[in-house]
């Protein structure tokens, strides 16, 4: 393969990354006359993916690693297969996934397949939990996953190679340069796996689950001045999977290819008059299932402006237009086209001990009446001194999800009269920081109405209908500390979520679901990480817990999936000489060889191993 260079070289470790960022010459620190999403969503809960985990497991897809970090659940249809996120009791289509500000959920299915979101493609991964449609648009009920690959790399070159169990190989190459006002960073990656792991407790190897995935990420920018620049981002991801069948299946032959092109071009102006962005994008999502192509093409144009008044009022306004074309055989000979326009405004103000914000969004969609979407939230410092801080966070929002193209245009099933799903969400949390300890707890509530479900009608034909009403509520809590014992730096983080997701109303055909927990929604979810760094050595332990999950709507225990705890271990050593960094990383996944399933009938591997070697050429310190 392209990148199989027989490389035995190093990668960035947590420590190096922190150091490297301060050495950055690609992106000089400049005053940005705008605020990040966190500020505009005051009172909201944001999580950031740990950079050590991101780096060590960059060859994994996001659906394999996020559940080790936040209380989320992934229904993975096998190892390396289709992966749907579930946050705060909602379904995979109730999480908005955005890449560089563009929604990349499938417009045909509604959900994002996390198995085609390889971690290597992103420089930053953030998760906003809870209702956020007023900022992130359609589908942000359970939360939003915010990805960016805007080239924050500080390395001239980095190369990495992994070898793992079950015929798994991963190769990546990253490079960046700057010539005058032009700078560029690029990544190339490829992963492939035979994936013929022994099915735990079955005595046979998993047949028909091989996959490969490769891609290219390009970020380029031309800075006319400190304040004005043009950026171009391009991401191509190409994935091929033999679809892993249910345990015991023989002679399986289904295959799927996913090919996604995503481009965005923006002009940015960052002056005392505010931060303006104007630009557009193009998204082409192809799914080729057993040779049949389904394609959704999207053209995007957007403009936004942020301004800070002297008295510290921040305002922002934006407009975004999407033109969507659904070239799917099942939609009929004429590809349906749809326009979606979103107008949004936000205000943020920091008072003495209070940061408060209000967001408003009004979407306009062809033949769909979308509601006005407000978000209001605040962070209040209740008490603060040099040793500790108590922070109260509250927010409330109205959210919506537009019916998908499948819902609306599937011939002889879809309905153009479907209403959008809507929800009201509210949450309140308390955070306590005491020296290095961080403890927080948060209660959340959401009421979702007009939830679209495909229900069997006459002759077993399924049709989408606005039938479900669902209430989700729960508590999430986290604790984190960091201490130094001699030369050893220890860091530990635990999180837990209690989630109830109860069907209040549904179609008569599913009457047994009323009052019951939604399927694939664990009541108890937990995650934990612990790391120790000693000089150039580091060790990490990652834990993921999921309680019992029902797979059948009346919550029959016959079909429930058993609870499990997964443990991953990583040992890392790095060497640095002048501009050269080497890292060797050894990982054990599923250390205790647990048998578990994330989706009914799909096997997951037992204990397995991975070795990673990487090399970085860093820029000279200035």
């Amino acid at each position, binding site marked *: 393969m392209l990148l199989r260079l027989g490389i035995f070289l190093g990668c960035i470790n947590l420590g190096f990354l922190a150091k490297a960022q301060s050495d950055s010459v690609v992106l000089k620190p400049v005053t940005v006359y705008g605020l990040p999403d966190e500020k505009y969503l005051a009172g909201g809960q944001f999580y950031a993916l740990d950079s050590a985990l991101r780096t060590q497991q960059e060859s994994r897809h996001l659906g394999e690693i996020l559940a080790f970090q936040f209380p989320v659940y992934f229904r993975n249809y096998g190892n390396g297969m289709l992966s749907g996120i579930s946050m705060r009791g909602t379904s995979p289509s109730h999480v908005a996934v955005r890449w560089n500000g563009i929604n990349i959920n499938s417009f045909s299915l509604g959900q994002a397949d996390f198995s085609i979101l390889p971690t290597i493609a992103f420089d930053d991964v953030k998760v906003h939990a809870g209702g956020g449609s007023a900022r992130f648009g359609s589908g942000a009920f359970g939360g939003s996953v915010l990805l960016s690959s805007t080239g924050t790399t500080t390395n001239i070159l980095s190369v990495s190679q992994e070898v793992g169990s079950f015929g798994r190989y991963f190769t990546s190459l990253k490079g960046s340069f700057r010539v005058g006002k032009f700078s560029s960073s690029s990544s190339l990656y490829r992963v492939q796996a035979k994936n013929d792991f022994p099915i735990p*407790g079955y005595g046979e190897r998993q047949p028909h689950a091989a996959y490969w995935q490769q891609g290219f990420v390009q970020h380029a920018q031309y800075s006319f001045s400190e304040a004005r620049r043009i950026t171009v981002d391009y991401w191509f991801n190409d994935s091929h999977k033999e679809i892993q*069948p*249910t345990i*015991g299946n*023989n002679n399986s032959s289904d295959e799927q290819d996913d090919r996604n092109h995503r481009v965005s071009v923006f002009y940015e102006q960052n002056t005392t008059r505010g931060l303006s962005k104007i630009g557009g994008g193009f998204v082409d999502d192809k799914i080729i299932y057993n040779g049949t192509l389904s394609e959704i093409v999207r053209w995007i144009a957007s403009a936004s402006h942020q301004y800070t008044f002297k008295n510290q009022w921040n305002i922002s306004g934006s407009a975004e237009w999407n033109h969507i074309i659904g070239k799917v055989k099942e939609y009929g000979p004429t590809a349906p086209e749809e326009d979606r326009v979103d107008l949004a405004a936000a205000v943020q103000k920091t008072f003495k001990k209070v940061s408060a914000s209000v967001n408003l969004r009004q979407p306009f969609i062809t033949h769909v009446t979308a509601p006005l979407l407000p978000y209001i939230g605040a962070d209040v410092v209740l008490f603060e001194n040099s040793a500790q801080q108590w922070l109260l966070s509250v927010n409330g929002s109205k959210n919506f999800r537009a019916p998908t193209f499948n819902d609306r245009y599937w011939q002889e099933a879809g309905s153009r009269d479907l209403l959008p799903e809507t929800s009201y969400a509210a949450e309140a949390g308390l955070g306590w920081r005491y020296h290095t300890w961080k403890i927080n707890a948060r209660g959340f509530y959401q009421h979702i109405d007009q939830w679209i479900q495909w*229900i069997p009608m006459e002759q077993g034909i399924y049709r989408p209908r606005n039938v479900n009403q669902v209430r989700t509520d729960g508590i999430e809590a986290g604790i984190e500390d960091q201490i130094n014992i001699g030369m050893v730096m220890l860091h530990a983080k635990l999180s837990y979520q209690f989630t109830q997701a109860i069907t209040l109303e549904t179609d008569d055909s599913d009457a047994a679901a009323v009052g019951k927990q939604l399927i694939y929604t664990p009541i108890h979810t937990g995650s934990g990480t612990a790391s120790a760094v000693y000089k150039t050595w580091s060790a990490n332990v990652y834990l993921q817990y999921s309680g019992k999950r029902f797979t059948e709507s*009346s919550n*029959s225990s016959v*079909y429930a999936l058993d609870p499990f705890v997964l443990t991953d271990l990583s040992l890392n050593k790095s060497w640095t000489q002048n501009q050269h960094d080497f890292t060797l990383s050894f990982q054990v996944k599923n250390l205790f060889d647990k048998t578990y399933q994330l989706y*009914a009938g799909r096997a997951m591997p037992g204990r397995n191993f991975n070795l990673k070697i990487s090399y970085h050429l860093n820029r000279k310190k200035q």
Partner: protein
Amino acid sequence: MNIQYKTDSSGKPSFFNVTRNMRRIFAVLFVAATLWACNDDDDKPQGKYEHGAFVLNEGKFMTGTGTITYYNEQADTLQQNIFRNAAGQYAGDVVQSMIFHDDKAYIVVNGNNKVEIANAETFERLGSITDDQIIQPRYMEVVDNKGYLTVQGPYDDNYNLVDSYVLVIDLTNNTVIKKIATDEGIENIVYAGNKLFVGASGYASIHTVAVIDPSNNTLIDNIELDGVPVGMVVDNNNKLWVLANDDANAKLYRINPSSFEKEQTIDLGTSVDTDLAITPDKSGLIYSAFGSFYKISTAATTAPTAPLFTPEGIEAQYGMNVDPDNGEIWIGDAINYATEGKVYIYTSDGKLKKTFTAGISPTNFVFR
């Protein structure tokens, strides 16, 4: 969704008849045994499946949750999920049909492309029949210790079946010994008058019943019908009855299993559901249309005008058969194909007798 049990084609006392006599003895023994052992653990297989009804539940598609439910009418005991495949949890993905032969149960698991073999007494797993040619298997019939498995074969890119066939399996070593090509979309297979009859019900354009001679394992005829064959049974005169569905006018054909002639055609004047069953004395046929159940004598020449009964509360009728002991009509309700289904038992004169919860999508009933 139809079911075949071993038919008594030769008139001699067959395996089937012997067990039928024996089952009464077992029933008495079983009742006695349950009285003694009334505090048995319900979860454990009781190892006594000699007599009773087996509900085949497809399970939720593509999740491997197909199960077999056992109901013993005399003892009124219900056991879910009695057979576990090698993975140890359920029977497999899309449990389609089952046939008893000798001391074994052969379970056709459509989604897994396998035939699982269980001990017929204990339902412990004995092994499975696998072969590269087993792709979407549907039903099996046994003649002379050879299994005849109907196989729909793979789909092409447009989800059309392109290569359906019957596989002949030597049950002494569970290997495929021959492939007999047929029309596309074959389903049911019935043994009558020394021949095997295979209904091709996949597509509206194919309206045939294939005839296979098991003495030399060749296809010897295709009987053309005016409608898609969806159910087949053998009556007390050893005649084959085929229910052929059609949008407006389904038909019942009586076919001579030696000459393959259509001796009688009855217009039903409606489209029907995909099951045909026969009463215990094999002189009456049971079918359903639009949620109503009809009984027609094998001597009749016209369709019945009034239904025998119309059940209430069924969301998605998915399987039907008649208990050969007492003529009771069993109906499977898949509800929404994703939740635990229900079984309705109606007496032979159409009164609701019992309902119980089965597995997901109950598609077939096998009695013994």
